[in-house]
């Protein structure tokens, strides 16, 4: 096992929620900190409201860009149901950071299926579950679109990544005109106590 020192972070959500900007900022920070980094996304149908995920792996030397089941150290979910869907990739006892936010998939909105009500109860049994109202925080800061950076702030705290210069990573990955709002979003996510 060559990447025993490596860490794996799984980010998931619904197409259009901004998972890609979050992973871009996250990997910018990790690369600047000197890690070997690999990241994998599946594109294609992502804009059509489908389920999306980004896998980030870092360490001294990384081979596989994708995470196997039960291998992720942290799961960051932009949407509750997606958090449950991808939780099989999270190692038992791993940290599940879930945005307290629901987007109904078409089978639910068309009445063909029910949105599961016991997601948090089930996830609590297997993981270190941390629920954060990231979209509500982002809205209160003026734009629901910075949900992604609120979650990044929360991830940095949950995963003790404070030793990385996140202001520099944000500066490198978000447009200058929204930088200040995103720095605030990062702080709000970092400071949130569930």
């Amino acid at each position: 096992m060559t990447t025993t020192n490596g860490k794996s972070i799984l980010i998931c959500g619904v197409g259009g929620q901004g998972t890609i900007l979050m992973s871009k900022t996250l990997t910018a920070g990790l690369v600047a900190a000197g890690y070997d980094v690999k990241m994998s996304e599946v594109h294609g149908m992502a804009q059509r409201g489908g389920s999306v995920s980004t896998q980030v792996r870092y360490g001294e030397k990384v081979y596989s860009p994708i995470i196997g089941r039960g291998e992720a150290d942290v799961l960051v979910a932009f949407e509750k149901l997606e958090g449950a869907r991808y939780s099989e990739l999270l190692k038992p006892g791993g940290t599940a950071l879930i945005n307290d936010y629901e987007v109904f998939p078409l089978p639910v909105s068309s009445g063909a299926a029910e949105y599961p009500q016991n997601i948090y109860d089930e996830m609590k049994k297997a993981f270190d579950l941390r629920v954060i109202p990231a979209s509500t925080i982002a809205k209160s800061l003026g734009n629901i679109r910075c949900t992604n950076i609120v979650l990044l702030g929360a991830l940095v705290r949950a995963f003790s990544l404070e030793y990385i210069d996140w202001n520099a990573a944000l500066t490198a990955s978000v447009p200058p005109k929204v930088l200040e709002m995103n720095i605030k979003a990062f702080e709000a996510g970092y400071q949130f106590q569930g």
Partner: protein
Amino acid sequence: MSSTRQLLTGNEAIARGAYEAGVTVCSAYPGTPSTEIFENLAQYKDFLYAEWAPNEKVATEVAYGACIANARSLTAMKHVGLNVAADLVFTAAYNGVGAGFVIVTADDPDMHSSQNEQDNRRYAQFAKIPLIEPSDSQECKDFMKEAYDISERFDIPVLFRVTTRVSHSKSLVTLGEREEQTPARYARNIPKFVCTPAFARKHRPELEEKLKALEAYANTSPLNSMELNGGKVGVISASIAYQYAKEVFPADTSFLKLGFTWPLPMDLIRTFASKVETLYVVEELEPFMEEQLKAAGISCIGKQVIPPMYELNPEIVRRGVFGTEPNVAKLELDMVARPPALCPGCPHRGFFYVLSKRKDFVITGDIGCYTLGYAAPLSAMDTCACMGGGFSLGMGMAKAFAQQGVTDKKIFGVVGDSTFFHSGLTGAVEILYNKGNMIPCVLDNSITGMTGHQDNPGTGFTLDGEIANKIAIEDVLKSFGFENVIICDPQDLKAMQKAVDDALASTVPAAIIVRRPCVLIKRIKHDVGKCTVDRDKCRSCKICLKVACPALHMKDGKTEIDQTLCVGCKVCAQACPFGAISRIGEQKGE
């Protein structure tokens, strides 16, 4: 961090590699997972020409023509695109090249965004051209440069194969400088580039000689390397499977890492095999290497432990080789799928909603966002198979129905604007020429949507955003002989219904163009707003849910519209029989 070391996707790195290799002419048609290669070439437009062609066959011909004129050239496509381009590729192998010519095929194991998972390594063997397979982004860049050298040195096109995981995963890349090429002056060479039978017969044995020379090269190529760590277990692997194998096998495992995979370096493989007691071949999809090893009498373990279909990952390789299962938490949940759906405000919704109401309609669909018209509750599609099939498959059904005496079916053939230019033109000609009893429909959303918004001959823009000649679909159809071309806005359901009725009643050849730009196109100012439900008027009939809009759902027995998703297209409002849905006029704040 070194300023030249960047985290790049495989596709970004391929574009960079083409730039550094001094490529000057590039032509492609978009297709997941290859699309971003050409989107990234646009940044090098001061150094090279890159375009979207109408289809992969045209793109490959353009790139090949450029190489005959002594320009290093590139084409790229998804795996099924190579089926379209194959006609030229097999003959180009005989003729050889002028300057270097590289064909990138981006395969899609697991069919993340595709209709099949064909293993295009077979094409290299079939067409008799060398095959190169990078396993990460650094190799994507570096191997491109090697590919051009090989193409020129052996006078042959090179197939450069990546997969979804290589194309779409990011890893660190050290950039290099561009090496400008000095093209030789073009001179006519009839025996080389005119493929008459007499010349082809002459090229045929020459090609076999080239392949022998390529195999000799493969044995010493820097793209193939041995990592000797122990004598017990050896692994031969290539592409992304190599990364998985490195992750899974213990540190005392020896590796033969192959980047040049056809013709296979059989001497090198024999040498490696002789150094280990047990030999594994770890490859995704087909037993492409394994079969050749076994045919050469080299015993190895391959598909008996590694599955021959879908994507691999470290877990699958570990289970196959070592029988280990991961520790996975099981949740007691009734999970609900989140299938892709037509976006809120999608212009295709009105078209499929109107057609979904008639059970006697047969709808032959095609490849694009509008394939999603098949999904429940619209369920308005009978077939979807390949680019252009929307017209021609419908034609075949029409002829079969005529032979069978079936008269109660009305056939609508559906293609998108980009697909129309890709492969719909010939199908439209077929419908007219052979008197097809069907109505061709072009769903013109003014963009190549599903692959992430690329321009096409109907949009009026080129790959790098320059103004282009805009080809009007109605002019094309009329010039063919469709005398009754009906153009309508699909978000006006009455107009949409009338277009369908008029086309069915037409006594002359009729076609429908459904026209409204994709609501996600950024350069267009869209008329966006929000719709809301009057809960007193809503009678909970759920008819509005039949338009299949992700913004609509039931809440406390009545319809509710998600205000963050709705763009105010009013298709649901028109579907509502009780006038319970109306639009509030304000522009959506961005």
